Structure formats: C-alpha cells, structure tokens
C-alpha cells in the first residue's frame, strides 16, 4: 500500500430528514449512510457491495459532493473536500468522475457526443478551440473502442453498451484520478457487461485509475476488484482484500451474500444461507448490531451492543461479536452448519 491514499473517507454520514406535519418539522431521519470509513489507493479498485437500499450509491454521490454530507470527512489527495464552497470545490471535481448505472438517462438526449465530451474538457480547461476539442473527443472514442465519427452523432443512435462507453469516455475526458462506477454494468446484458468490465480494467491499467466500484453483483466484483467493502444498512460490516473476503469471510452477512453467488460447476454442492425477512428500514435501524434481525448466529449481546470493526488480518476488518468468542466456539471460523435461527 502506498503512503498517501487518493481518497480517504472518514466516518461519513448522510441522514435525510423526513419532514412532516403542518409546520414541516423534521419528524424522523433516514440513516442512509451512518458512519463509514475507507480509503482507496492509486490504481486500486475498491468494490462497495450490498443489497439495494443499503446506501452504496449514497456513498458515491456523497464523495462527488452532489449533496452536502451530514458528518464526517472526505479527503481527496490530502485535502478535505466535504466543507469546501462550490467555487473552491469545482477545480477539484476534475479528480473524481462518475459513470452511472442507466446508460439511457446518463446522457443528455439533446447533446451530440462531441458536446457531451467537450463539457468536462472546457470546464477544466483541458482543451480549447473547436478542433482541439473534437480531436480529443475522437481520441477518447478510440480509447473506449467506438468509431471516431461517432462523436458527431446523438445518444439515441447508440445501443446501451455503446452509451455506457460514451459515459466512460465522458468520465475520462476530465482526466480523473478516480472514477466512481455506480452500478455501471448492472443495466447491461451479460456479454456487454463483460466487455465494459474488461474495458474498465484495461483503462485502469493504462491510466493508473483508481475505481470505486459500487455493485451488488459479486461475480463481477470478484473478477475485477482488489479490495471489497461489504455494506449493510448504511454501515460497512466487513472490508478486506478480494482473497480475504471471498475465501475467508468473517461476517455472517458476507457469508450469506457469497453463498448466493452461482458457481459454474453443477457438481459443487454448497450450503446456501438463506436470510430471513427484509432489510430493516433505515429510518429506524435495529439497536445493537444492525444485522441482528436476520443473522443466523445472533445472540443476546448483538441486540444491545453495536460491534466495532475488528481487525481479522492485515487489511481485513469485520464487525461481528462472534470474534470475541474462543475460536472453537466461533461458527464463522469453524465453518460449521449455521445454527438454527433463534426466535
């Protein structure tokens, strides 16, 4: 790990107030993201995984400062950006770009591809003059594997996969250090998905990009990530390298998620851990461990005390009280049958 991470997020919180009543007072909060910390190094991919509604996308948008955050720090290249004014933040936006999930709504239907790509270039002063901008736009087309003359066309003339390439080209146009891929391949069909994932991987190697890969698809994540952070209900429950997370998960939720990933071998028999019930509401998250309503190994302490992230190994943390038990009694380590769910 290099000394200075490109992006550091410390105890990030984003609560949405719910207003109601006659005088529009705040009646409750949605704890969308409730205190998460991580860092991304140069050229590294960190995947943020979890069920829908767990706050993954909110984290991405908070880093992009698309809205003010409630608490915590976002440190970009050693500089805190969470408190900066819009004017001071604008030049720094160049360093973080984004690729969104839906390739159809992420491109303005009334702008030609060239103008879409020109926007970040002119905003950050990376190219001036019509010809220079068009030239750069064409080079970006080369990079993302689209024909050069595509720059003169409209978004609706492209397929979903091609549009996603244009979205990636727009992100690259700013020459960022980190790209946030917010479910960037979820809306694409399988073969196109593989193409885009490989494209992102190639670009990362070529340009030394860091990626924050927000996804719910563990198969894709395993293919392209260096490290994984597992989120549940606004918190990170486990974080570690790809090998640590996939080979030795240390949180019951991670185990359950992994057990749901299909294995391309019909002979492999695997214990499916079926989680009961739905994700609790982020308006009123459970006390203690947030996973206690669905955890197969839940015991009394989980309902009272919130588990902190404990170090499992070098660079591997998990938030589970089970790790305070002796190793022999810890079902996560003994790999035994999951105990029947208590009440």
């Amino acid at each position, binding site marked *: 790990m290099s000394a200075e991470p490109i992006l550091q997020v410390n105890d990030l919180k984003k609560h949405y107030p719910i207003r109601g009543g006659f005088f529009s007072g705040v009646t409750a909060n949605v704890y969308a993201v409730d205190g998460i910390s991580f860092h991304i190094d140069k050229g590294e991919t960190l995947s943020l995984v979890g069920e829908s509604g767990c706050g993954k996308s909110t984290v991405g*948008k908070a880093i*992009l400062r*698309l809205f003010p955050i409630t608490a915590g720090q976002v440190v970009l290249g050693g500089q805190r950006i969470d408190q900066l004014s819009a004017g001071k933040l*604008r*030049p720094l*936006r*160049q360093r*973080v*770009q*984004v690729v*969104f*999930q*839906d390739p159809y*709504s*992420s*491109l*303005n*239907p*009334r*702008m030609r591809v060239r103008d879409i790509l020109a*926007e*970040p270039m002119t*905003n*950050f002063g990376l190219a001036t003059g019509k010809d220079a901008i068009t030239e750069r736009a064409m080079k970006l087309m080369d990079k993302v594997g689209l024909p050069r003359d595509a720059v003169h066309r409209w978004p*609706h003339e492209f397929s979903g996969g091609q549009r996603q390439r244009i*979205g990636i080209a*727009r992100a690259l*146009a*700013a020459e960022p250090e980190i790209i946030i891929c917010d479910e960037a391949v979820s809306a694409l069909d399988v073969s196109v998905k593989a193409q885009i994932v490989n494209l992102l991987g190639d670009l990362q190697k070529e340009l030394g990009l860091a990626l924050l890969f927000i996804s719910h698809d563990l198969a894709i994540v395993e293919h392209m990530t260096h490290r994984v952070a597992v989120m549940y209900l606004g918190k990170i429950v486990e974080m570690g390298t790809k090998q640590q997370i996939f080979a030795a998960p240390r949180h019951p939720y991670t185990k359950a998620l992994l057990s749901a990933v299909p294995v391309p071998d019909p002979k492999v028999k695997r214990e499916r851990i079926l989680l009961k019930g739905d994700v609790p509401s982020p308006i009123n998250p459970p006390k203690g461990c947030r996973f206690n309503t669905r955890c197969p190994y839940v015991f009394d302490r989980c309902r009272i005390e919130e588990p902190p992230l404990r170090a499992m190994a070098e660079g591997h943390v998990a938030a589970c009280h089970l790790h305070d038990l002796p190793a022999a009694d810890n079902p996560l380590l003994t790999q035994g049958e999951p105990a029947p769910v208590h009440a």
Partner: protein
Amino acid sequence: MNAQAPAPVPADLAVAPALPDVLKPRKPLTGFTGFLRKNPSIAIGGALLGVMFFIAVFAPLLWTVDPTSISPARRTRVPSELYWFGTDMLGRDIYSRVIYGARVSLLVGFSVAILASIAGLTIGLFSGFVRVADGIIMRVIDGMMSIPPILLAIALMALTRGSVQNVIIAITIAEIPRVARLVRGVVLSLREQPYVDAAVAAGTRTPMIIFRHILPNTMAPMSVQATYICASAMIVEAILSFIGAGIPPATPSWGNIMAEGRALWQVRPHIILFPAIFLSLTVLAVNLLGDGLRDALDPRMAKNL
C-alpha cells in the same frame, strides 16, 4: 440458384400464376413531405393556421372595404353577391370585419402564448431550482389557479380600459400559472437525471446546467402547452369582447362582431355565424397543431428529431 441460364421449363410442369405482390415494398417516409404524411394533424392544423395568417396579413387585398365605415341605409342585409357575409345593424360589411378580425385574434393568441411561455418558464425554472422560494411561489400559483382564468381576466380588465394591449396582458396573467406549474414539474424531474449529476461532477456551473441540460429538455412539453394556450387565449379574447370587457367595439374582432350580432341572432343569425366559424376553425387548427406536436415530440415515437 443459377441466374445466368434458367433451366427450360418442362412441358408437363404446371406453372403457378404469378401471385399479386401483397406486401409491396414501402418507401420510408423521409424529409418534409414524409414528416407531414406521418403527422397529418400537424399538416392540417398548420395549413389551416397558414390560411388564417394569410388572411390576417393580406386583409386589405382580399376584396375588403373599410371594416369601420357605417352606412345605416344598408343595415342588416343577408349575405348576397355584394355583401358576401351580409351587413350588421350599422351597415358595416361583415366579410371585411371578419377578415380584419383575424388580425386581432391571431395577435392576441400568439402574443399570449409567447408572453405566458416566457414568464411561466422563468417562474417555473426559478421555482424548480430555488427550493426556498418554491413553497411561496407555488402557493401564490395555487391561489391564482383557484380562480377560473376567464374570471381572472375579466377582473383584471375591470381594473383598466379596454385595448388590445390590456387584453393580452390580462389573459397572459391568467395563463401564467399553468405554464409555471408544468415547467416546475419538468424541471424537478430533469434535475434528478443522472446526466445532470454527471454535469455537476464535470464542474458545470448551475446557470450552464440550466441552459444546457434543463432548458432544451423542457422545450417539447412547453411548445405543446404553448399551442393550447394560444387556442385558449383566442377564445378568452372572444369571450371578453363578447361581454364588452375586451377590445373596444370599434375595432373588429370576432368576439366584438358576435357581441353586436347577439341582439339580432334570431332574425339575422349570419352576423354571429361567420365570425363563429372563423374562430372555431382557427382554434381547431391550433389544437390540431398542438396534438400533432405532442405526438411528434414524444421521445417514444420520435427518432427523427
């Protein structure tokens, strides 16, 4: 298949008669004529409106006489070779008055459509982007919308004297709330589009976001709304003139002509009939145009924008 040398057909082979070409190849409709073929309501509405514009612009050349010259000796004539649409109770030529009346109706209709669109667009954009002002503005708009537009226009006209300019202002004020609501709604949904977020992340300033990403995408619903406002404004103008709250009676407008013919409609229905036909046709033309635009600008149907 061997195309160069067709094998000779054996004599005893039954040859099927050539089938009629059921599915004839169709040329795709392209270009201006193709657009009109695909959107007949735009073609019909546009043509009808074009005729009305022609009438309004070239009124003096269309065999008209001075629409305000009175000749009491020849009053309330029925349509004849000399007076195509007859004369009213002051002996004025109704044909000339109806033709000149097109000027007032079209002027009011289009002025109101343009002014109400600009004002509504400004208010809607402001309201959609400045959340603090949104609540206040929308409550005022709600209040204005609770009064029927015709009643509001009558009330506004009561505050001032009748003139074309005042009628336009009064109807514009009455129509603004509907545009502002529409634009605000569109802006609120466009603001949440990922491409707007991407533009923010790409460092675009808010005014540029509005002009580059929001405004162009409000144009389709706006232009449709504008045509409906245009049609509605023409009717409101006629109503205002009819009840004597609008254009001064000396100026020929379709509403005025109908108002003057009201007392005689049982014995001389043609006085009301002809301006009513013209008003109906113009409003129909504008509405057809609006319906056609709505369909043509619908992104699910339009690939040819």
